[in-house]
């Protein structure tokens, strides 16, 4: 499927008489679209490949963004509009193979003509942690265990938050660090965005259901960015949300489908058992299998955490060991939207320099 934003349609095979260089961006989320928007479209052919039917990535599924709780759509619209009309967006496209021959990359898509390009950008992002791997939390087993993504969809669709029995929940537990900072599931890293997302979602639930009691269970709250700490204060002072330092150990279900959660309040040192109507799991970032597959085809290096490695974490964070292949956004590890946009713009500059001067670093 091809979404043509403008009328002009560039040929998909490199036109040697014109000598316009082609950039292929894989991934149509915030990162990929920002790169496409930041590149001068009159100088390059830009092709954006997205596996889903619609571009937008994870942000398209989100309702509001931290810390200001502005609608996610505003940011998405801005990024989408920043792309020039002659950017070709191929949606619903999966890459079957990628070949590198000299300085050219040939991409085979499912059931389509191959595309040849001079530079490839990996903006394939992340997957959310599969909460079923943390079986003790009961996701997929108990009805009233949902993920932060599912909660965001409920907000997005403008539905009312209810338990599986259709009742208004009286007490909700929000569980931090599900699949992050957890050696037992093989993820030692912090997913960065879940702490503040949890605080934001707690406030939003409280806005929707003022009578509902909310308990957040955390290891520590990493309020690292501007206005995050303020949001955390607001959650406690204005909204009366309870924060308990302790990692959830296990969850059991009562006959009426309410849940018993067990943890330890590590500030008081007491084991804690609590009945709640539902729990929300703040699932973290994991490298997607699709990214790993593409990385293997391009011989890219992967870090211990499974995310991709750039040439240098400090001063060459967008180029890779393969000249002409660039990384941007959450393929390199958990990142928030602000950082992803900045990173994508930096990537655009790097590509431009590479295509003009041949210097990839």
């Amino acid at each position: 499927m091809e979404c043509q934003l403008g009328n002009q349609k560039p040929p998909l095979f490199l036109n040697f008489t014109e000598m316009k260089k082609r950039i292929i961006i894989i991934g149509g989320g915030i990162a990929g679209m920002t790169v496409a928007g930041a590149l001068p479209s009159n100088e390059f052919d830009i092709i954006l490949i997205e596996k889903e039917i619609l571009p937008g990535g994870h942000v398209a599924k989100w309702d509001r963004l931290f810390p200001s709780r502005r609608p996610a759509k505003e940011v998405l619209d801005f990024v989408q509009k920043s792309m020039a009309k002659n950017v070709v967006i191929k949606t619903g496209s999966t890459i079957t193979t990628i070949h590198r021959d000299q300085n050219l990359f040939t991409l085979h898509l499912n059931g389509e003509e191959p595309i040849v390009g001079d530079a490839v950008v990996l903006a394939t992002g992340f997957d959310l942690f599969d909460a079923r791997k943390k079986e003790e939390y009961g996701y997929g087993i108990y009805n009233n265990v949902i993920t932060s993504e599912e909660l965001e969809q409920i907000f997005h669709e403008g539905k009312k938050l209810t338990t599986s029995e259709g009742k208004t929940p009286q007490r909700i537990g929000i569980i931090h660090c599900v699949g992050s900072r957890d050696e037992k599931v093989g993820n030692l890293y912090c997913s960065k965005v879940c702490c503040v997302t949890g605080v934001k979602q707690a406030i939003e639930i409280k806005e929707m259901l003022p009578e509902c009691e909310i308990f957040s269970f955390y290891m520590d709250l990493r309020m690292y960015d501007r206005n995050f700490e303020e949001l955390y204060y607001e959650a406690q002072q204005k909204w009366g949300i309870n924060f308990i330092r302790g990692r959830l150990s296990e969850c059991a279900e009562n006959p009426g489908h309410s849940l018993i959660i067990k943890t330890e309040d590590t500030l008081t040192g007491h084991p804690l058992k609590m009945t709640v109507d539902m729990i929300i799991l703040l699932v973290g970032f994991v490298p997607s299998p699709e990214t790993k597959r593409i990385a293997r085809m391009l011989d890219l290096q992967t870090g211990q955490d499974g995310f991709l490695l750039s040439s240098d974490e400090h001063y060459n964070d967008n180029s890779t060991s393969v000249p002409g292949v660039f990384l941007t956004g959450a393929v390199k590890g958990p990142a928030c939207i602000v950082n992803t946009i900045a990173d994508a713009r930096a990537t655009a500059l790097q590509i431009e320099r590479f295509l003009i001067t041949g210097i990839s670093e």
Partner: protein
Amino acid sequence: MINFNLFVLPFFLGLIYVLVAVGKSWYHWIKALTPIDKVKLSTLIRHPKQALSALKEVFLESLVHRKMWKRNPLLGYMHMSFALGWFLLIVCGNIESRFYSGVHVNAPYYPIFLKFFIHDRLVIFFEVFSVPGFFRFLMDFLLLYILSGLVLALLKRQYSNFFGMKRTSRFQFTDRVAMTCLWLIFPLRLLAESFTAGHYGSGGGFLTQPLGDFLVQLLPVPSEFVAYAMWWGYSLSLGIFFVMLPYSRYMHIPTEVLLIFFRHAGIQPKKWYSSFSDTEVQSCSRCGVCIDICQMNTAGIHNAQTVYFIQGVRDRYVPEEITQKCLVCGRCQEICPVGINTDSLRLIKRRELGSGQSTDFSYLKSDDKPKTAQIVYFSGCMTHLTPSIIRAMTGILENAGISYLHLDKDRSICCGRPLMIAGKDRQANELIEINKQIIHETRATLLVTSCPICYRVFREEYNLPIRIQHHSQFILDLIKTGKIPLQGQFKKVVYHDPCDLGRGTKTYEAPREVLSKVTDLLPVKQEANNALCCGGSLGILNVTQQQRAMITKEALDILLENKPEILATACPLCKKTFATHASIPVMDIAELVYQSIPKPSYSASAQSHQAKSYANELI
């Protein structure tokens, strides 16, 4: 004394030394047995049948090396040629020497160096079929047999993979000296006998005579002198070997004999380092069979394998790190040709490390009136981390119309094995006493548990006067008595044997029988007592998660070789460990059985729909 020469002294003195040293050890081991064990041992004397069966085992294991044969024929042949070959050489040599000396008791060196003293000629051809001719043939044949084993032993140092071994044990200095002497004994005997036979032109057999005749021709020096030097060398290598024996791995030769008698007397390993443990340690031949099968290799650890751990125990110094670095999976115990209780030895040494950790189990005591039931279900704390197993088990129980008590429904009760496996027996026993009281108060007659770890400790440490079953056995009983109707989907399934259920309690058949009723059970390359550990073991705390992941992934590779749709197991810990890395759904046998019970409401409920779609998605 007519038949004496100075060169026999090294052998003779070495022999006296080794007999005294081994005798002293045996005396100390027997003396240090507990009074009960001493009584047990003395019954062997009164029951010749038992003693005979012990002797039979000594013959089969110490001489024939039956277990080595099973493991690898080349390895078996090598060990047997040394043990049985040498044994027969001694026995036949003794008989032969009696023929020559005409008396029944000869000096111990006389048969060993017989060819030095006797070199008669076989005059006519048919004398080959006479008694001396027969013995000459036999002795040469036995020597050749041992030498063929020696060639294999030399090859094994270089090409161990032909013997089914990737890695061989690293030896200590004393081992190397003793081994060198052992390896020299038989070539030197061959040369000594050959040169003597060549010098006298008689006295040799089919091997030594022609070889001697040939060698003597080549000699630039008088053959008598060379022969004499060879006899000295032969005696010296024997003597040094004997002196080194108590300080080297070859101590296993005399000790294993005693160990076999201990075992046949019914003596068991103790919780502390007993005289039985010491005989086990000294019986270790350091053959290294336990090295390759140890999954620590997969995690890049090559210094903590049982052979090195036992070496440390023997040298009275084992670093704590090595004592702790063990999955306690029991694989080495299964394969050990000597049958050493390797896991129990590890735990003994862990106990010695001690711990001052204080515990408070007061939370387990409750003032509520205890509930009672005939059948008590104990899910175990690991099963609390896999709620789908609890859901399946309670579902099966309800479906079978059984009234039961879920003992640890609202509170996790630790069975004590994690403490015990860490060597913290005092704390574990405190816990066990409380738990026994809790179980006693339920007036149960049957205790069913979903966790093999609990099952094992209930059986081994609790002394409960009631039946204890793992849920695989319980479910099998339900199926056999027709309590639960089944409609299996017969998906392709492989079964992973949990260490504590399989090797720990020898429960191999029940889970397989249950699975065969509802699934299409595929074979696995390494299963039953040779199954791999999942890597989640509670027995080890000093490996990283990455190292655990390496072990898990290797086990998964082997399990998923036949492309099953589902990986089944019977342990919540194995399930959780595999689920982190597996590409297919991992399910407990209880879940598979529960799924196969036809129930109209089940497919309608939301959660099962979710669970199903999960399974479908992954498949």
